[in-house]
């Protein structure tokens, strides 16, 4: 397998960045990893995961959709879309890599979302196998192998080198473009490292989390569960879970008057907010119970009902780490589980 010594990775980044924008996880001043555009001096972080998920690359927090110019009774519609330039994301973990396919199901199904597709098509995704999964990880519950993260190029480390394996045509082109820096390497150490990671994965506290009690056929039973009241009771409706979630895909569309015209943009929204479903004649989800239930029913029942049984969660654990009241999907699943 082709590899590069870890201490030489900056050379590879420099080569890639000559032609395309390159984004890598890098520690910010608070010590949290965030995807950062690479330039000389930006250091790769081997942190388990980035603070915000990688969905931002394809589904940014806000984006402009269309412009309007108003004059008297007339309206001019201005299509502001531009072809995105090619870019590379390096170091995507298996959970985030899987989340792209969950978003694809929504945004690439008819009618295709051209904004999302544009970015997706121009991105090369280079994943990174996990070596130190943490106690908040539960990707294996959703059938994800953290040692085989996929992407266009799958990357893994044995502690001294990064190994590269192309998984798609785009991935092959990437490897060809940096082959001058790569050399053939023995994977014995890498196989050992992966075996060790698998041992850790099997011993994680959430390794036994089961999805048996969830799915499309459990809709009525789960919706009517009397557990929702207790589970949602202390929810602050802050929406943090939604914002750090790699699979949360809901958006709002708003207009902004720039003084020279109207910008129509979309931005992330959250089903945890009271005005998400509020209409002139009322609100079908009146209390936080209904809104809280919606978020988890969507991931565990509605999404699988619409997309061949695939769950709308990848077990990245961000919501476990970030919820201010320590409520999360794992607690919800355990409470609703039928044993």
């Amino acid at each position, binding site marked *: 397998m082709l590899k590069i010594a870890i201490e030489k990775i900056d050379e590879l980044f420099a080569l890639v960045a000559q032609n395309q924008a390159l984004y890598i996880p890098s520690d910010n001043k608070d010590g949290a990893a965030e995807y950062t555009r690479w330039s000389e001096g930006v250091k790769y972080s081997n942190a388990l995961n980035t603070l915000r998920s990688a969905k931002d690359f394809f589904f940014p927090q806000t984006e402009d*959709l269309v412009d309007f110019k108003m004059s008297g009774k007339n*309206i001019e519609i201005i299509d502001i879309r531009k072809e995105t330039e090619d870019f590379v994301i390096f170091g995507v973990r298996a959970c985030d890599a899987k989340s792209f396919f969950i978003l694809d199901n929504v945004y690439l199904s008819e009618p295709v979302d051209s904004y999302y597709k544009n970015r997706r098509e121009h991105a090369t995704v280079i994943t990174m196998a996990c070596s130190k999964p943490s106690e908040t990880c539960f990707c294996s519950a959703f059938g994800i192998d953290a040692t085989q993260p996929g992407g266009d190029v799958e990357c893994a480390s044995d502690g001294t080198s990064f190994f590269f394996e192309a998984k798609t045509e785009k991935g092959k082109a990437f490897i060809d473009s940096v082959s001058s820096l790569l050399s053939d390497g023995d994977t014995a150490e890498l196989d050992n490292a992966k075996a060790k990671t698998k041992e850790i994965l099997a011993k994680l506290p959430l390794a036994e989390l089961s999805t048996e009690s969830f799915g499309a056929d459990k809709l009525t039973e789960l919706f009517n569960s009397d557990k929702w009241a207790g589970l949602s009771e202390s929810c602050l409706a802050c929406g943090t879970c939604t914002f750090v979630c790699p699979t949360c*895909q809901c958006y709002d569309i708003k207009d902004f008057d720039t003084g020279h015209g109207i910008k129509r943009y979309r931005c992330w929204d959250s089903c945890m907010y009271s005005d998400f479903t509020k*209409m002139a004649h009322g609100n*079908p989800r009146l209390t936080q119970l209904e809104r809280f239930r919606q978020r988890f029913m969507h991931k565990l029942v509605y999404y699988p009902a619409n997309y061949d049984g695939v769950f709308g969660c990848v077990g990245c654990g961000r919501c476990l780490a970030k919820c201010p009241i320590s409520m999360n999907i794992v607690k919800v699943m355990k409470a609703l589980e039928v044993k």
Partner: protein
Amino acid sequence: MNNDTLIPHLGVVTDIRIDTPDVKTFRVVSPEGGKVFEHMPGQCAMLSIPGVGEAMFSITSSPTNKEFMEFSIKKCGCLTSWLHMMEVGQQVTIRGPYGNAFPVETELKGKDLLFIAGGIGLAPLRSVINYVRDNRANYGSVQIVYGSRSKDDLVDYQEIINEWMNDDGIEVNLTIDNPQEGWDGHVGFVPNYVKELEPSTSKTVLICGPPIMIKFTLAGLKEIGFQETQVYTTMELRMKCGVGKCGRCNIGDKYVCKHGPVFRFDQLNELPNEY
């Protein structure tokens, strides 16, 4: 880049009809003339005044109308108030059509039809009623039960008395909530009126109106002997995208904008009661 459904088309308002104190019907054509797009009865469109708002409205005109589309809109919020203040010649943005339609070419064909509407709930049904009138041979008898708060709140009143009531094979039953000077028709709420009329249980029912009216009318229909599989309705929830992606108009695993807005009651009953 391909067209994106989120980028709207231009429309021009060529006629504004005052239906009731709070309902106006707007005629919309493309700037070049003619309809902006084709639709089927029951489908909806997103209308917008940029900078004011964008919202989903049912298309009240029938697709058999080849010249224009119409929207009957009740004044109840920010955007609708703006629409009520605008004048003929105003451009709007429009995108669609969205959602499924009443199954006029399949399940409803050859059936005796009973339309039940309350208030502005007539708007989506008017599209079906006029489609049926224009394809009369394809359907059996037509009965329309329509009720409103007062005579002045009956939407499309002129069309009802001048056209629908003069059609052969169409029975129109109007009712208003309270007695009113100049009204010698029926007085009372729609659910009770439907029971009094004792419609034949062989009919297929299309119902739209305030949720409370639908609830009691459906209960009454069941008492008479109607099955849920015979009754269709059309739903409305808050929407942003119109294509099942923005995530807010779902009832269970169904998006009203995409899988609806038309549902049969047996289908609706399989979904959580969250609408």
